[in-house]
């Protein structure tokens, strides 16, 4: 076996690079996400229920929002009828932010934890509390 030195060095570098995310997180405090539902509108609800079940929303909100976007922008459809038969306007601002007016305490909890930066906010206006603080 020739060039064993170079090959072993290369392998070590490769394994190091592949596992970099794990090394990078070592020693950092990983705060478990805890999205807050403490907003004026939610607090006034008798039955606290999103447009679909909590687990469905946790699992699928990104798919759902993607479908909404295409339905509204490309197919002239503006109404979402949920599995329970309720109608909602498909709109981040009008529907989602009406209840979830606490972006930092709600959206960002998980997004930060999984290190995702959705760029919705570049165009869609953040809930009112955020506008006051600038962007």
């Amino acid at each position, binding site marked *: 076996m020739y060039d064993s030195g170079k090959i072993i060095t290369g392998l070590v570098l490769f394994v190091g690079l592949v596992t970099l995310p794990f090394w990078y997180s070592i020693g950092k405090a990983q705060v478990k996400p805890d999205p807050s539902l403490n907003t004026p509108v939610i607090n006034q609800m008798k039955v606290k229920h999103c447009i679909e079940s909590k687990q469905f929303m946790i699992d699928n909100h990104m*798919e759902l929002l993607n479908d909404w976007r295409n339905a509204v922008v490309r197919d002239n459809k503006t109404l979402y009828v949920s599995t329970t038969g309720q109608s909602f306007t498909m709109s981040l601002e009008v529907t989602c932010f009406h209840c979830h007016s606490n972006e930092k305490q709600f959206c960002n909890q998980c997004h930060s934890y999984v290190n995702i930066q959705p*760029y919705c906010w570049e165009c869609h206006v953040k809930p*009112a509390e955020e506008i006051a603080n600038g962007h």
Partner: protein
Amino acid sequence: MDIDKRQFLKILGISSALWVGSRFAGGISSLFGIGDKFDTKALADAGFEISKTLPDPKALTAKQWAIAIDIRQFKTADDYKKCIMVCDKIHNIPDISTKQDIKWIWEEPYNAAFPEQHNNYMGGQLKDKPVILMCNQCEFPPCVRVCPTGATFKRQDGIVMMDYHRCIGCRYCMAGCPYGSRSFNFQDPRPFLKKIDPEYPTRTKGVVEKCDFCAERLDKGLMPACVEASNGAMVFGDLRDPGSDIRKILSSNFSIRRKPELGTQPNVFYLI
């Protein structure tokens, strides 16, 4: 099986590439085990009640929306201003005092709006008269033809629509549009907005934007904002409906369109 080191490394490389590719194709979310993909078709096939998306029953519908602008009814500066301001306001259109300004609806003198129609001997009152301009919602829109991503497309009601999510800022559409109806965001528009309407998104640096006949209002059952503000100087309606107001006004008045010779078939008509 008898493979040498060379073959082994080759197989290893190909396999790794395939694995990485499949993981990305499966979506980033599944890397973290957050959840499985929501499969409405499977649910529906299994007999479960599923959600659906619908148009608003109040929505205004047409085969081909069009606007007729009676420029004879635009007399004072305020007649123009009220149409333009309401659009700027509800669509969060920034006011940038350079060539990088964004415009959906604007005014230009007759001889600039209709450069070939212009002749040097027309009445002074018409030659320099400002005319309201906006996207012509062409029946054969060059912008749609040249858009490489489908960000600009034609709705079923004839409106030439922008899907800002898909715009990559290549500006082919701006090169294609013969009417200068499209503006590019050279920068984040928000610092140039005195007030942001939170119910309508702003745009972002690097996307093109334009008038869409207030598609968002039509889908809620409302007329375009400029038409509503014009006090009857603009007539909006379905060009394919022989009984529509716009058909009536077009059949009883002489109308012109911008650069009709290009064959784009503009859907903004001007009554002279």
